[in-house]
């Protein structure tokens, strides 16, 4: 690990932690969402510097999309999204602080007390290739499971979130064309 990488890790790590803390201290919903985004982008940077460029950049890519969409929902559902009138939306702060403090202490203690094993195996020439080979070979089952989880999520989330089903759109006999929608789509179904 060269000097540049160490410095980068320090900077990214401090920024990530700052962003994480800001998430629960800022008032404006937009700023909250984007400080979380900043934090997770730094996490992506840390992962990249650690030798996993593919995963790091993909984390950045995914988190940007995720957080922007999260900001939209937050502003739709929360009162006072711009934080113009400061108000507290927390409960049992002290309990939460104690629990998370204890967890942090336990984790840090563990980190410094556990006798970590030495490095086994050499760094692959291309970590992306290693990941791809393993996902498409011995970890195939993981990949397939994740795929099904994603599919179930897509179907489940859509069913939960929409009110109108196909009978609302196409009529009781499912024969209404084009469908009755508040706004027509582009291919005229």
């Amino acid at each position: 690990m060269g000097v540049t990488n160490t410095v980068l890790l320090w900077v990214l790590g401090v920024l990530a932690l700052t962003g994480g803390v800001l998430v629960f201290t800022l008032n404006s919903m937009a700023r909250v969402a984007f400080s979380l985004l900043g934090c997770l982008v730094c996490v992506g940077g840390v992962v990249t510097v650690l030798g996993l460029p593919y995963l790091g950049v993909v984390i950045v890519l995914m988190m940007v999309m995720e957080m922007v969409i999260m900001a939209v929902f937050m502003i739709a559902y929360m009162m006072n999204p711009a934080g113009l009138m400061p108000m507290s939306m927390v409960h049992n702060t002290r309990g939460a602080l104690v629990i998370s403090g204890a967890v942090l202490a336990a984790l840090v203690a563990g980190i410094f007390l556990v006798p970590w094993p030495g490095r086994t195996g050499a760094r692959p020439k291309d970590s992306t290739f290693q990941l791809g080979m393993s996902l498409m070979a011995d970890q195939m089952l993981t990949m397939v499971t994740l795929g099904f989880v994603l599919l179930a999520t897509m179907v489940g989330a859509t069913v939960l979130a929409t009110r109108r089903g196909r009978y609302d759109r196409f009529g009781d006999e499912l024969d209404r064309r084009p469908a009755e929608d508040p706004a027509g789509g582009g291919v005229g179904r």
Partner: protein
Amino acid sequence: MVDAGKWWTLPVAPALLLGFAVLAVAGKTALDDRGAGRSVTPVGVLRPLLAVPRALVAQPRRLPASDRLLWRLGVVTVPVAAVLSTLVIPFGNHVVADLSVGVVWFNAMEVLTWAGLWLAGWGPNAAFSLVGGYRFLAQGLAYELPLMFALISAATGAQSLRVTDIAGAQHGLWYAVWMPFAFAVHLTGVLAFSFLGPFAYPAGRDIADGVLGETSGVDRLLLRAGRWLWLAAGAAMAVPLFLGGGAGPGLPAWAWSLVKTVLVLGLLVWVLRRLPALRADRYVELAWVVLLPAAIVQVLVPALVDLGP
């Protein structure tokens, strides 16, 4: 074959990008002048550049209850992400940083404009601006997935995410020839993430320029420059991905890159005037019902070809 990371590439890449962007703006202005019955002159077509002195002398505006910090952040993100995306785009035999995950890098930088434009719409606390910001997200959800699969098609064909590998893997038969659909989807995506022409929906005239509406001075200049920088970056990226990069007979590699980029840019600028704004409420369905399945089928083509021999 490709020399990566010479020090002088670092200032040259943004300068080239800016040059292409100015060229595109001039081309668009020339076409507009012809359409409006004005005479087309070499000086006249450069008049959009007067936006630079205008931005420098303009008085700053302060809007009530605006989120200045996020607004600035969003406005700056768009052109900066465009410049960063060029790090991985080879021009001739040179590239600033030949990342092993170049394609993903380009994609991630392009997605940063989502955040940038949404913030640019949210910041000024004005209804039409915010609608513009939301419109870009709706547009993004439509164009992004087909675009990703178009990028994946090229990467699959070359079995590499390194952009120079993709350019080198085309051995005379361009990917644009046997993956024409992916090429078309990529060009559509370029127009969409530079929110120009038919994809100017987030900055539409019907919502008083949307995300651009409340910006003035340097902010406005940055955001507008960002659009054209993205158009140029997308066109430059199409060359190594689908048109064989700098390969070609006779001329040196940089000349071929130049010629191809200018041609792609010319095509895009021509298309800008040919279509009305594709509103996301209509385009999303087309993108998900037609373009996305077709893009997945397109990925299958290089995948099967790779499996073959």
